[in-house]
């Protein structure tokens, strides 16, 4: 690796003399601290930075900001690469490794450049017309490998961004002339001001402004404005671009290094937003305008002023406005050699004539009424062909190695078009500017179409003062800054040079996507006349620079080709993000384990320490089984379930949803929300109850306890509590807002320990002590009792989900662990969800696999409840004819006819092994240790659901067909003797 040294230390206001080095395409280069990769490579005379996406044409740096279409590099080495990083924005950091993209085998020699030969028939949309035979698949792999820009990353080494919430009175987007003027007004008025500036420094175009502001030079004024803002407590955020947001929230993104790391996301809630994001320079279309060495004029000035880089030895400037001359003077004063200035304007003012005269006097040839027609030099500009616009036949050739183009400036409207903002065509601006905005936003400066310094200073200042007043900042703002000596650019629109039809294939409009004038013409000829269609068909403006350089240019050329005014053609719609934003920044802090909160029960630590294997249930972690009981879930589940039925066990049921409903109207309210009545319950009793959804389907079930005449505790499925809570709250508001119903979510207030099995009562009596003996002995099924244990409230409900004698203990988490440990010491083995599933399937109890939102209560065998039922939510929809039809599903049990085959959950049930008509499906299946075989719960069409019916459980996915017989869903202890012991 040759170490390339810059010839001498460059002077630019962003670089210091300190040396740094980095790699590009395997070679090491020196640079100065503050350099970007683009400036450093340009300083070394590197011209080739990449190749274009379709034709693989050699490309160099075109711009100095996010509008860069060509110089996209891959940063890092696999697996942690970051592709498509814009070289002009990439800061050099220690050990930085960069590579050019989209070329093979090298940047200099790219075999895919042979594609250029196909440019005649590889125009826009060519792939719609071919690649059909034999099928697209035949070509797809090759196309995908040719497409894309940078490498796919194998991994990412990016920390989540910092996220900051910012609230302010006035947000100013952009710290250029208009932005600073607005910020000053707002700060003086006493508003809380935040300014977002994409660059590392403020000032924007003022960096190159020769006019004075308030009797100071432009740069001096910027410094004093910043100092004043600092004194007023205004906040200026650098490297920070406004990227999007919605509904009054503005998102700004700071990416200081340009390499996707160390980013900050600002979530800004301003009262008012002043958009002063300026305008971006654009080019002009001429033949081979994409050659390395063709660059935006403003970019060349920036490389010189900021980094001390001369982008060429023999420069030519090309454009259509007066700023060409000011730029030329600056470049000349810095010692750059300017061969010529090509100005498309023939009919110009005296001012312009004077400007030209001055430059001619410095030895610069000024050609008015001329245009660059063509560039020569495939790997870098070496010569241009210039034509006289009045006499197109005459050609002048000028040798040069850099062509600096400026076709005008396109206002950055993106933020102004969002959330109800409008734009209009402004002839004097030559393009589209912001107009009607929602009342909290206003556009000033270039994005409002005001380019003249003195005017925009005043307008911006006043607009901000008004906005500040409207939010109550009434301080005296004084006089707006006064600009003197600025002149209007006197731009005359010029979009492309004339050329032959064949040459239109090499007049580039969107550099990144290789969209040419020929493509635009082709789109029109194929009937794509609307700019939205043209964008989609040609891919104009959909690249990483989001149409900054090519969007308006393309629209204007379309207008010329159509013979329509640009105001009619319009530009395609823009949307956030206004600058490409990394997925990591968008994801914010919710990455990795923080994607969603993890909820743990009070017994989690104990479970973890004692070999629990967890599984997620919504946001909760629940114990699936304990490692000590088996090598995997299947064996451990069987062991634990067997233990429960033989002796007993304890389960952490804390995730059970618990909602308290209280008040004088609580009972009547519950009657309305549950299928059967709660109002008939006695205090101290509980009841199994079912909720219907509005359409009659079973929504949830649970046990409801009557704690007091006007207090009930409703339990819901784990993970379902929030949904049920909102459901209850909705009906309370909708129908009961004038009544007394208080609803409180107590899911996290009560830990729940399930104690189940034949030895459960005895163990519980031993643990809870004599004070509880009589209560527990006398507790009948579905009763509950409330008292205390170890100084805290304990509620014991006798209820069972396992079919065994069982109790649910509700306690606050302070005593959860001691109680649990005491129960373990009393000989009860903890069991998990795997075992619970076995136990409940054996008993035909339902979970979400059965209550899946598709089943009516009758489908689930709850006919009895329906008959008892009252006019609850959902009842009215149960009478629909489909629900009484014979093919309506019914909950049944299934067993394998051979007594041993495995029945799989998700199997479809048919009459025979060749039938394709499904009668239902297996919703839950387990191996039952109690019965020594696989059992299932299933849905089967009503008219085939009689016990004893033989059907087939079809599982083509796993290649099995099992003959099954319909049984009652209650497989074990159908009379519930064990539970009611």
């Amino acid at each position: 690796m040759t170490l390339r040294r810059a010839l001498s230390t460059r002077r630019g206001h962003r670089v210091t003399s300190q040396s740094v080095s980095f790699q590009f395409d395997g070679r090491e280069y020196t640079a100065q601290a503050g350099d970007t990769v683009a400036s450093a490579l340009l300083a070394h005379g590197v011209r080739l930075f990449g190749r274009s996406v379709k034709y693989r044409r050699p490309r160099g740096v075109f711009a100095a900001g996010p509008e860069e279409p060509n110089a996209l590099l891959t940063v890092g080495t696999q697996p942690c690469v970051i592709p498509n990083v814009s070289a002009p924005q990439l800061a050099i950091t220690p050990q930085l490794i960069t590579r050019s993209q989209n070329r093979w085998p090298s940047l200099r020699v790219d075999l895919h450049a042979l594609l250029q030969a196909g440019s005649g028939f590889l125009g826009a949309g060519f792939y719609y017309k071919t690649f059909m035979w034999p099928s697209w698949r035949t070509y797809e792999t090759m196309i995908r490998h040719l497409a894309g820009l940078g490498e796919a990353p194998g991994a990412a080494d990016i920390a989540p961004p910092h996220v900051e919430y910012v609230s302010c009175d006035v947000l100013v987007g952009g710290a250029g002339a208009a932005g600073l003027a607005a910020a000053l007004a707002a700060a003086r008025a006493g508003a809380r001001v935040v300014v977002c500036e994409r660059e590392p420094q403020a000032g924007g175009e003022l960096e190159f402004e020769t006019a004075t502001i308030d009797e100071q030079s432009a740069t001096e004024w910027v410094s004093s404005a910043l100092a004043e803002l600092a004194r007023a407590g205004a906040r200026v955020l650098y490297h920070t671009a406004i990227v999007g947001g919605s509904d009054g929230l503005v998102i700004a993104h700071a990416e200081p290094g340009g390499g996707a790391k160390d980013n900050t996301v600002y979530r800004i809630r301003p009262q008012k937003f002043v958009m002063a994001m300026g305008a971006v320079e654009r080019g002009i279309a001429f033949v081979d305008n994409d050659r390395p060495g063709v660059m935006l004029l403003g970019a060349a000035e920036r490389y010189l002023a900021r980094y001390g880089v001369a982008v060429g030895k023999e420069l030519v400037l090309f454009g259509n406005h007066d700023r060409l001359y000011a730029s030329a003077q600056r470049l000349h004063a810095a010692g750059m050699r300017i061969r010529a200035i090509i100005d498309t304007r023939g009919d110009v003012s005296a001012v312009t004539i004077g400007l030209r005269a001055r430059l001619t006097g410095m030895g610069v040839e000024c050609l008015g009424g001329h245009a660059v027609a063509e560039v020569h030099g495939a790997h870098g500009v070496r010569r241009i062909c210039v034509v006289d616009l009045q006499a197109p036949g005459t050609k002048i050739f000028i040798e040069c190695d850099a062509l600096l183009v400026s076709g005008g400036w396109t206002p950055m409207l993106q933020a102004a078009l969002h959330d109800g903002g409008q734009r209009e065509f402004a002839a004097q601006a030559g393009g589209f500017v912001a107009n009607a905005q929602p009342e909290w936003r206003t556009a000033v400066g270039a994005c409002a179409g005001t380019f003249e310094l003195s005017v925009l200073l005043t307008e911006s200042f006043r607009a901000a003062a008004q906005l500040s007043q409207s939010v109550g900042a009434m301080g005296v703002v004084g006089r707006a800054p006064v600009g003197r000596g600025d002149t209007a650019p006197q731009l005359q629109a010029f979009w492309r040079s004339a050329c032959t039809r064949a040459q239109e294939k090499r007049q580039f409009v969107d550099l990144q996507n290789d969209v040419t004038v020929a493509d635009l013409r082709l789109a029109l000829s194929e009937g794509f006349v609307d700019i939205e269609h043209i964008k989609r068909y040609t891919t104009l403006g959909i690249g990483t620079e989001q149409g900054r350089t090519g969007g308006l240019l393309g629209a204007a050329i379309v207008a010329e080709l159509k013979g329509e005014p640009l105001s009619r053609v319009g530009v395609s719609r823009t949307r956030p993000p206004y600058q490409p934003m990394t997925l990591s920044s968008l994801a914010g802090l919710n990455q990795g384990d923080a994607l969603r909160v993890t909820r743990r029960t009070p017994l989690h630590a104990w479970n973890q320490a004692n070999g629990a294997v967890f599984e997620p249930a919504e946001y909760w972690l629940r114990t699936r089984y304990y490692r000590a009981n088996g090598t995997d879930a299947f064996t451990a589940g069987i062991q634990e379930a067997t233990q429960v039925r033989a002796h007993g066990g304890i389960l952490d049921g804390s995730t059970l949803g618990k909602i308290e409903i209280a008040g004088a109207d609580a009972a009547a309210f519950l009657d309305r929300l549950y299928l059967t009545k709660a109002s008939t319950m006695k205090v101290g009793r509980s009841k199994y109850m079912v909720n219907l959804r509005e359409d009659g389907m079973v929504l949830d079930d649970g046990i409801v306890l009557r704690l007091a005449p006007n207090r009930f505790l409703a339990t819901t499925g784990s993970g379902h509590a929030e949904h049920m809570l909102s459901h209850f709250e909705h009906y309370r508001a909708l129908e009961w807002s004038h009544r007394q119903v208080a609803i409180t979510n107590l899911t996290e207030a009560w830990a729940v320990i399930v104690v189940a099995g034949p030895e459960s009562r005895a163990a519980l009596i031993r643990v809870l002590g004599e004070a509880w003996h009589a209560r527990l002995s006398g507790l009948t099924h579905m009763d509950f009792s409330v008292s205390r244990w170890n100084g805290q409230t304990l509620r014991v409900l006798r209820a069972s989900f396992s079919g065994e004698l069982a109790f649910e203990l509700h306690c606050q988490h302070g005593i959860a662990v001691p109680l649990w440990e005491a129960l373990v010491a009393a000989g009860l083995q903890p069991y998990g969800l795997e075992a619970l599933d076995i136990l409940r399937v054996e008993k035909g109890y339902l979970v979400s696999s059965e209550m899946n939102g598709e089943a009516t209560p009758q489908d689930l065998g709850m006919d009895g409840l329906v008959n008892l039922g009252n006019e609850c939510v959902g009842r009215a929809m149960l009478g629909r004819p489909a629900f009484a039809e014979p093919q309506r599903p019914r909950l049944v049990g299934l067993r394998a006819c051979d007594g041993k085959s495995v029945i799989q959950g998700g199997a479809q049930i048919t009459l025979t092994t060749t039938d394709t008509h499904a009668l239902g499906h297996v919703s839950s299946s387990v191996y039952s240790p109690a019965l020594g075989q696989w059992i299932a719960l299933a849905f089967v069409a009503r008219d085939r659901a009689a016990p004893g019916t033989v059907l087939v459980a079809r599982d083509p996915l796993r290649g099995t067909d099992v003959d099954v017989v319909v049984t009652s869903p209650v497989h074990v202890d159908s009379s519930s003797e064990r539970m009611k012991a």
Partner: protein
Amino acid sequence: MSVRAPRYSAWSLLRGRFSGPGFWRPLWSGRQLQKAYDVVVVGAGGHGLATAYHLARDHGVRRVAVLEKRLVGYGNVGRNTTIVRSNYLLPQNHYFYEDALRRWETLSRDLNYNVMYSPRGVLDLALSDGEMVSLARRGNAMRLAGIDAELMDRAGVMKFAKELVPAGTRRFDIVGGLLQQRGGTVRHDAVAWGYARAASALGVDIIEDCEVTGLVTTAGVATGVETSQGPVAAGQVVFAVAGHTGAIGTMLGVPLPVETHLLQAMVTEPIKPLINSVLIYVHPHGEVYILQSDRGGVVMGGFLDGFPSYTREGRWSRLEDVVQSAVALLPQIAGLRVLRHWAGTNDMTMDGSFIIDRIRYDNVFLNGGWCYGGFKSIPASGAACAQFVATGTAPDLIRAHTLSRFASGHLLDERGGGPFPVRL
């Protein structure tokens, strides 16, 4: 009047290269709106254009107009995430979507326009054993119907989509998945333009900038429509307006079981191939479906924004949700950048399945309520709807997709979510 466009092929590209201007013709030539048609189709999206195409091609209906408020393909057909699949649970749905998938397989040749059908596989990921049971139920139903489906365990998923092999652990880990290999992607713009071109070649008038503002009726029969370009008489009228389906109900005085929601999608900068199938990752309160377009950008979408909207401007927090899920699934993409995002307007029905049925009048048809399943169904929707309109009888494939099914209880609810497009 049909306009002869050159037949597309590699040879035609070569010829075009060396021919003068005028070799390529407009895909659907500018036609004049006539005073009367046999059938007026409202909406030049995928469904409207496909219906018109099939009316002309399969049923010889001579005078068909497609009236479009804005531009061909401006609506959802140009805004979706390009996924095609037939991995539906219910027979009333999966036979229909399978019909569509079979048509996707040959559509490029049928239309002579490359729609780039890419059967790269659609993989639904399961994050728990319970989800595996749900996937198995769906996959087995598909297999019974003769539709391809494969259930994979974790190892199988990691082998199929190597980019899923995690460097660390995921908050919600992958336990397995259900793959439909024949599912995949189709280039969405090509579908609209391809159908428009083919329909136009068969004599269908496609009229843009023509908004239908009302239905004209006489004695209980529709006789035509009012438009922004004047009245048009019609023997039959088909409304295929996707996100504006609800508004059509309002216009016709028929309250519909439809709620209009906004759905966002986004794409990153283009990179070399990374994701070679369509991955669907649904975790508690979050979901993402993610794929890579042939141009190289990573395309992703998620759940609805969550409230009725016609603005086509999504809310930022939903963008963040989808990206969070995408980065959780594929952490290696964290450094890629979102370039563009857009939104469409989804007509969500109260059971999540579509409606193709008469609406209020015997000669007026509604083709809508497509929820998330609009794009993938286009070829089948066009064929079935055209048959319905031309013959007066709904073909078997759509017989269950009536407007009246909500009242009768014959719901087609794949998710079990009930009449709530937005889950509580």
